[in-house]
């Protein structure tokens, strides 16, 4: 049994990072909020850098609840889309040079979002990670946790349900 030589690590990294950038970078609303994704292997952490325009309560001050909802929903959507894309990336069926943000696989459609606000969002960076609880052919359920200074003290968590897009042809 012969094995081909493993791909150089930079080639793998570059393909993964380009795929992620194509998934995220083409969405104006994600760009507008300033959400970025940090990747470690297949694990994604969403980062929402603090900006004054994200404030919903200027007296406290606190992040807008709608910003937190959008942040968690985006984290869930991208994490889910990313997990569906992962096999294609790893098998090198995706060529990073061919990735066009306007021609990415259709995103999962959010059916509903239930969000618990556990603490007021402080005027600093926020982070979020999603866990795919169940991803079926048609539907998916994703849990997301958002935190700020302390991972053990989440400021919000949410459960999202999605309808999955039809599989791509070919």
């Amino acid at each position, binding site marked *: 049994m012969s094995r081909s030589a493993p791909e150089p690590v930079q080639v793998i990294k570059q393909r993964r990072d380009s795929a992620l950038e194509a998934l995220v970078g083409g*969405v104006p609303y994600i760009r507008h909020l300033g959400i970025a994704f940090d990747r470690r292997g297949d694990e994604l952490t969403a980062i929402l850098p603090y900006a004054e325009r994200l404030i919903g309560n200027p007296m406290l001050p606190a992040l807008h609840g709608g910003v937190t909802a959008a942040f968690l929903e985006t984290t869930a959507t991208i994490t889910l889309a990313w997990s569906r894309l992962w096999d294609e990336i790893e098998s090198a069926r995706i060529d990073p040079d061919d990735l066009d943000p306007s021609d990415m696989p259709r995103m999962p459609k959010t059916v509903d979002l239930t969000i618990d606000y556990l603490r007021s969002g402080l005027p600093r960076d926020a982070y979020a990670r999603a866990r795919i609880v169940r991803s079926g052919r048609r539907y998916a359920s994703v849990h997301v946790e958002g935190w700020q200074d302390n991972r053990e003290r989440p400021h919000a968590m949410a459960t999202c349900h999605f309808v999955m897009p039809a599989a791509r042809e070919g």
Partner: protein
Amino acid sequence: MFRTVAAKKDHVVLVAGGPRGHNRARIPREPMPMTDRTEEIARHFMERIPHARDLGMTVLSLGEGTCEVSMPYDEKLIGDPATGVIHGGAVSALMDTCSGAAVMCHPTAPVATATLDLRIDYMRPATPGQTVRARAECYHVTRSVAFVRARALDDDEDNPVATAAGAFTLERGERA
């Protein structure tokens, strides 16, 4: 759905555009029915909440525990570049803002509110190019909690884009 809830006689509610719609205050065309308090709330939302301003939200009307807020279509709100449909998160932000304003307008005159939880159901994509409006009603309050329902509409008012239900904190001021 909203009407049924509003019809319960022990609830002090006004549905935006509903049978008691004459109490609605409009900005800025009909400033007269607006009390100092609702006017202050409306101004607060438009001028003082950075994120409401950032997304271009405008308060259309405020009633007793009701609120209507609009958010014009803008390229920065797009969540699906292929179709130009706005991101669900922007609709969530709109409904959260509108719901909070509805709580602040409740006759118990709360001094502050914050979202405890919010459930949002997305029925359909908002039509690209159209303004999205949210209507919220705070249909019941306890000593410390306000219950709110909201819906988001575009030009096709018979088919909501999204609906929401949530619980908000209610910080009461001094009792009258």
